[in-house]
C-alpha cells in the first residue's frame, strides 16, 4: 500500500520559561513514529495533554518540531520551500475541534471558502457556483452563501470548515477532534459525511480524538498515546478486541458504554483505574506509565520500552512484551 505520510522519531519540546533561561521542557511529543497509508483513517487517541493535538499540528508544520522527520508523499515536509510548500499547504489540510473559533467571524461563508482558493490560484469559472456546489456537497445550500459564521449552529459551522477544506482538493486531512464540541445527534451526521467524502474522493485522514467510540467507528488503524509517547499501534479492531498495553486496557475499561447490561459486565471486570496522568514537564523515567501501571517491574522504572510487533501489524511499547 502507498504511504501518504511517514512520521519518524518526531519530537516536540516546548520550553518552560524561567526569568532569563529556560527552566525545563514540556515534552509534548517525544520520539514517535508511525505511517499512514493512502485512503485510510488513522486514529490517534489519548487523554488531554498526551500530545495528540501537537502531533497533528507538527505534521502540518503549524508548529516546528524539535527533531524528527515528516515525509509527505516522499517529500520531507520540514525542507519544503516556496512553491513546494504551497503545494503541501494545499494537499494537507486540517479541521479543528472548536467550530466557534475556526471561522473568521468577519468573513461571509463565500469569502471563507474563496480566500484559500484564490490564494492557491485555483481556476474557477464562476466562483458563486463553485462555492454553492461545495456547500451542497457538505449538506448546506446557496441560501447560506453570504451569511456570517455567527448565524450558524456548531454542526453547520463544521460543515463550512469542511467545505473550505474540500475547495482545495486535498489528499490528506488532519481531523483534530472534529466532533467533540458537538452534540451526539449532530456528531453522527458529521462523522457520516466524513466517511462518505472519504469513499468518494479517496481522502486520507488522521483522526485525533479522546472519544474511543468515535475512533473505533472511524478508524482503520489507530495509535494510542500517553504522555508524549505512542504506546500501541495497530488495526483498530485488533486493539479494541485485544488491547496489549496496560494503559490501553485501562482506557478501554474506563469508557462508559451506552448499554446498561454491558456496563454492568464491564464494571465487574474493570481494572482498577489509578491516578491521573502526571505533568509532561518532568515525565517519569523509564516507561512513562509505570507509576500507574499494575504490572510495573523494575525494568519499567529504568528503561524505556521499545516498540515491538506482537502480532501482525499490532505494535506495543511495553516491557511485558519486549525482551530487555
Amino acid at each position, binding site marked *: 500500500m502507498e504511504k501518504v505520510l511517514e512520521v519518524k522519531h518526531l519530537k516536540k519540546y516546548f520550553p518552560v520559561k524561567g526569568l532569563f533561561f529556560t527552566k525545563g521542557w514540556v515534552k509534548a511529543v517525544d520520539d514517535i513514529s508511525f505511517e499512514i497509508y493512502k485512503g485510510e483513517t488513522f486514529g490517534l487517541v489519548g487523554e488531554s495533554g498526551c500530545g495528540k493535538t501537537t502531533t497533528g499540528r507538527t505534521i502540518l508544520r503549524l508548529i516546528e518540531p524539535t527533531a524528527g522527520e515528516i515525509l509527505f508523499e516522499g517529500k520531507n515536509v520540514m525542507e519544503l520551500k516556496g512553491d513546494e510548500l504551497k503545494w503541501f499547504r494545499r494537499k494537507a489540510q486540517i479541521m479543528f475541534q472548536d467550530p466557534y473559533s475556526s471561522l473568521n467571524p468577519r468573513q461571509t461563508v463565500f469569502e471563507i471558502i474563496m480566500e484559500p482558493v484564490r490564494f492557491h490560484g485555483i481556476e474557477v469559472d464562476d466562483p458563486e457556483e463553485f462555492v454553492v456546489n461545495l456547500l451542497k456537497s457538505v449538506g448546506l445550500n446557496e441560501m447560506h452563501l453570504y451569511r456570517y459564521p455567527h448565524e450558524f449552529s456548531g454542526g453547520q459551522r463544521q460543515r463550512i470548515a469542511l467545505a473550505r477544506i474540500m475547495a482545495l482538493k486535498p489528499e490528506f486531512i488532519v481531523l483534530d477532534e472534529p466532533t467533540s464540541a458537538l452534540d451526539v445527534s449532530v456528531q453522527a451526521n458529521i462523522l457520516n459525511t466524513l466517511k462518505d467524502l472519504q469513499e468518494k474522493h479517496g481522502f486520507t485522514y488522521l483522526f485525533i480524538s479522546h472519544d474511543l*467510540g468515535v475512533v473505533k467507528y472511524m478508524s482503520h488503524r489507530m495509535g494510542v498515546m500517553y504522555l508524549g509517547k505512542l504506546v500501541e499501534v495497530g488495526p483498530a479492531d485488533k486493539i479494541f478486541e485485544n488491547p496489549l498495553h496496560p494503559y490501553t486496557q485501562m482506557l478501554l475499561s474506563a469508557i*462508559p458504554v451506552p448499554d446498561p447490561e454491558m456496563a454492568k459486565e464491564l464494571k465487574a471486570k*474493570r481494572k482498577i483505574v489509578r491516578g491521573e496522568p502526571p505533568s509532561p514537564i518532568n515525565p517519569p523515567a523509564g516507561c512513562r506509565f509505570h507509576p500507574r501501571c499494575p504490572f510495573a517491574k523494575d525494568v519499567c522504572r529504568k528503561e524505556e520500552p521499545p516498540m515491538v510487533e506482537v502480532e501482525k501489524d499490532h505494535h506495543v511499547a511495553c516491557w511485558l512484551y519486549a525482551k530487555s
Partner: protein
Amino acid sequence: MPEPILQVRNLTVHFYTYAGIVKAIERVSFDVYRGETFALVGETGCGKSVTSRALTQLIESPGRIVEGEVLYHKEDGTVVDLLKLNEEQIREIRGNEIAYIFQDPHASLDPLYTVGYQIGEAMEVHGKVESIKEGIKKAVDILRSVLIPDPENRVKNYPHELSGGMKQRVVIGIGIANNPKILIADEPTTALDVTVQAQILDLINQLKEKYKATVILITHNLGVVAETADRVAVMYAGKIVEIGSVEQIFKNPLHPYTKGLLKAVPNPMTKIERLEAIPGTVPNLITPPSGCRFHPRCPFATEVCKRKVPELKEMEDGHFVACHLY
C-alpha cells in the same frame, strides 16, 4: 412503592433575553425517589442544567421561574415547596440538604482561597462548625473521604496547585461536607479525562452509599447514564420526552428521539457499520415548534404532532413517554 424525596411539577423557566423570551424549560414534571440515582439526559440547550438549578431557585437574571412546584420531602416527613421559600430559607437548604457539583472544577473554586477554607466555609455557613478555622480542621477528613492523598497538606493548597481531577474531588468534598440528602451533580465529569471520569463516578457512587444520599445526575453522556443511573429522564428542547428505569430506556426506548439518540452514539464495544443520525438541528427555544417540539425532526411525525403537545403517558410500569405514537 418507592418513596419520593423530590416531586417536581410543571416547572417552567423562561429567560428574558434580547432576542425574545427563551422558554428554557416548559412544564417539566418528574419524581425522584429516596436513595436512587436519577439521571437527566439530553443534548446541549435541552434545559437539563436549568432544571437542576431551578430546583433550589438558582436561576440568575434574566432567567425567571415562571411556574411550578418542587416538593421536597424532608427526613421528618414534612413537605415543603422549595420554590415558595424566601431567600434565607432556601439558602439554608442549599449546600446543606441539597448540594451541587458543577461541571467545571476550575471555575467552581474561588482561586484566591485555599481548598481547606472553601470546605470549611461550606460548613460554617450552615452552622456545622463554629468557625472557618475549625472547618479547615474538619476539611482534612473530608478530603480524605474523597480519596485525596496527603489531605493534611492539601487543605493548605490553592486550587491552581491541584490537577483537574483533584479539584473536582474538592468540589465533591464541598458538596458532601454537610452530609446532604440530595446531591445534584451537573455534568460532573465532562471537563475530565476518561480515566479520571471513571474514578470520579465511582467516588460519587461510594459516597452516595455511605451517606445514603439521593443523586441527581445531569449529563449528556449516555455511557455515564447506562453505568450509574437507576432511572432516567430524557429531555429534548425544554421538555421531558421519556422517563423510565435505565433498562427500560436503553432496551426499550419508546420516544423517537430517545431511539435516535441511542443509535447515534458509537459504542466502542460493538461493531457498527453506520451510525444513524437524527436529521435537522435543535430548535431555538424562543419560537419552539408547535405541538410536539420534536416533530420537525421526527420520522414518524403526523398532523397531530404539529398541533397538539403530547403529555407523558405511562406505557409500562414506571415507563412514561410523551409521544402521540402511543
